């Protein structure tokens, strides 16, 4: 079920009335679990089997890890839980990597192998398996270091875990929840406690970003695909690429905001996922502002466990590259995602090396800051090409076309549209900078913020694009 569809709107409304009604006040979690299962199984009910299996095994493992007496057995159980999650991910997501690799050496008639390769990717599997890992790893820590009150009653723990894994606003594309941040929130909720301001802002902004910006830009950046890009001029190709950069931000930030808004309707706070990523002056800063729930997950559960920056320079660079490479592969079963991860990992390592060995200006002037922002934005934008063109040869040919197609006629319709739809996203970042730097105009803008929201609301109705799937659904 898509956030930008009428069935979703209906599901939220019906769930809302049941959830806060007196007869169901003691069964709120159960109501949300049932809605979540309807949400997830709406178009492909068979996917519920895997979701329920994953949630159930994580519930059993986490319970056992928590209450097992001997350290040795706890460790064994924790390793089994994490391995189970990774195996599920590997089996359903990375089976595609077999295609074109090992398969070449095996007979075409090997039915089992072909069956494995053709198993469809369950939506949201990357997100909910990471949450399962988070639960098991959090509970493996010594009891005093995590803030989770685990029920002795297994059935209650099972229900809470099931809810944590399946909660529908974040189920298919995050923000990725960490057990220690979500479990303490599970309690009875009251209508009067809804943060209406947050709900309103998050939903209007979220739907504006998705429907007006991302859905319209997707039909302009469509021509990035092969073979269409071959006939576009250099300027058009560069413009489309930057347009895609804005589109992927609007699409994912929009989704995250809608998730935050819908969760807030039911009294739950989801973590912030984006924090003006395109004003970043360094690649490291970008990763502290982009898909925050994933980058903090990777930092907490992978980078630090690998030793982080505590084991010397070389090891730190290696850790950065490894984590980003795995983070890239988390997005999809194509080598282009791995290369995208390496692009960022190597970028981070070089940046760290340069900042360590050159005198780093901690307070750069406006022009230097602007140059850095432009550089990082360009670096990130060219990286997105590997998301759009998952065939690496095509991505390379796109870059070659930028160099070669200078003589072709510019597609001004595409250029104009990309500029038009990118403008609100750039303005949004600029407003943040204005506020951060205490410019007086900021006060005027913030006094009239209601006008911004009303215009966004109108635009959702009169200028929304043709609804498309969220980019991150494929991950």
């Amino acid at each position, binding site marked *: 079920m898509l956030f930008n569809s009428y069935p979703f709107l209906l599901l939220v409304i019906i769930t809302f009335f049941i959830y806060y009604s007196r007869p169901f006040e003691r069964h709120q979690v159960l109501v949300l679990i049932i809605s979540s299962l309807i949400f997830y199984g709406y178009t492909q009910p068979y996917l519920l089997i895997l979701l329920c299996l994953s949630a159930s095994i994580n519930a059993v493992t986490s319970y056992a890890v928590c209450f097992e007496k001997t350290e040795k057995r706890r460790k064994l159980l924790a390793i089994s839980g994490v391995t189970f999650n990774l195996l599920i991910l590997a089996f359903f997501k990375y089976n595609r990597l077999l295609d074109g690799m090992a398969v070449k050496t095996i007979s075409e008639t090997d039915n089992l192998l072909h069956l494995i390769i053709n198993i469809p990717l369950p939506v949201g599997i990357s997100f909910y398996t990471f949450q399962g890992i988070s639960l098991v790893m959090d509970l493996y820590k010594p009891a005093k270091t995590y803030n989770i009150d685990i029920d002795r009653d297994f059935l209650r723990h099972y229900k809470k875990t099931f809810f944590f894994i399946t909660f529908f606003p974040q189920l298919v594309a995050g923000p990725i929840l960490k057990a220690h941040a979500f479990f303490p929130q599970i309690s009875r909720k009251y209508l009067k406690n809804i943060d209406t301001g947050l709900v309103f802002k998050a939903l209007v902004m979220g739907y504006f970003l998705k429907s007006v910006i991302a859905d319209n830009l997707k039909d302009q950046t469509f021509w990035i695909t092969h073979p269409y890009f071959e006939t576009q001029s250099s300027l058009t190709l560069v413009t489309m690429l930057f347009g895609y950069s804005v589109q992927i931000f609007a699409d994912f930030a929009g989704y995250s905001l809608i998730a935050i808004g819908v969760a807030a309707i039911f009294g739950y706070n989801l973590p912030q996922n984006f924090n003006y990523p395109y004003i970043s002056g360094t690649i490291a800063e970008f990763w502290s502002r982009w898909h925050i729930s994933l980058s903090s997950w990777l930092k907490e559960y992978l980078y630090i466990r690998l030793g982080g920056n505590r084991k010397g320079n070389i090891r730190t660079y290696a850790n950065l590259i490894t984590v980003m490479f795995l983070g890239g592969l988390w997005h999809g079963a194509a080598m282009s995602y791995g290369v995208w991860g390496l692009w960022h990992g190597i970028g981070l390592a070089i940046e760290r090396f340069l900042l360590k060995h050159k005198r780093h200006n901690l307070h750069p002037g406006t022009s230097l800051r602007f140059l850095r922002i432009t550089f990082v934005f360009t670096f990130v934008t060219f990286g997105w090409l590997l998301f759009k063109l998952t065939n690496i040869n095509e991505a390379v040919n796109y870059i070659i076309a930028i160099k070669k197609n200078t003589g072709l*006629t510019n597609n001004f319709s595409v250029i*104009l549209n990309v500029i038009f739809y990118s403008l609100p996203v750039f303005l949004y970042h600029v407003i943040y900078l204005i506020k951060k730097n205490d410019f007086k105009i900021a006060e005027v803008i913030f006094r009239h913020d209601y006008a911004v929201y009303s215009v966004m609301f109108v635009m959702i109705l009169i200028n929304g694009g043709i609804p498309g799937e969220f980019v991150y659904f494929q991950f």
Partner: protein
Amino acid sequence: MNLSIFSSDKYIVKSLLLFLIVFVAYSSMLKIVKPKVTMFQNQWVKNYSISEVYIYKPVLPHTVIVGSSMSARLLQEEFGNDVYNLSFAGGSALTGLNLVKKRNHIPELLLIETNTIERSTNNEMLRALFTPFIWRLKKHIISLQYTYQPINIMLSVIKRNFGGSEAEKADEKPNSKILKSSLVRRLEKNSKAIIFNEWQELTELKKLVDFFYSKGTHIVFFQIPVHPKILASKRYSARQKILHDMFAGMEVSWLLTPSGNSYETSDGVHLLFKSAREFSKVLYASIKNILENNFKGTIIEPR
């Protein structure tokens, strides 16, 4: 994304009030001015607009043309009000046929382009166009229609003031580099046989044609002129044979396919402006001839 930068009081009430004022003002302005929209932000929005114009027509046309981007190049202005071109860029005749059926319209004459007939129906578009309640609402509140998106109105104004003239468009020449690379690609594609799932689309076509035929609609199959090499390709001739066999027992008309030598394309299959105008005239002459002779009229021979 951080939302904390917006923080004034009573913003929800103020926002909703202003939203209502702006929305009502824009909708009223459209009702009064009814701006002429001639330019669209992209081909998909244009497809929706073409469909909306058709769906909300107070008087439906007696003839409907359905097809792909090749037919979408034909000029509506050459057809007049009684013929409507319901062809979609990136789509096929199947989407158009399903749309006519969903609209409960039985035209006298249905012209079906067969160049890309095996492309599947765009069910998402059909669902969106006929969403219960919403599609009726859009009829009355036209600001909700894709056609009247502010960006389309803005682009139309830019086109009117700064767009190229008719003469410039008529002088349009194909880019030899694009034509060459496109021809190679299309010839390769058209050298392959029709595959299994395309047969499913042909079966759907048969059902739809049978439906309209049984309701008394006269069916005319036609092809848009393409590059001679593409016309001579394996797939093109196979497709024509399949269609002729499929509708052999029915009284349908087949417009003769021009050789393609006299019509120019930008990429081997899409007509340039001048050729599109000429072929539109030929097609319209055929339509008139068939209608005037009570569906028995001969088809005007293309050049």
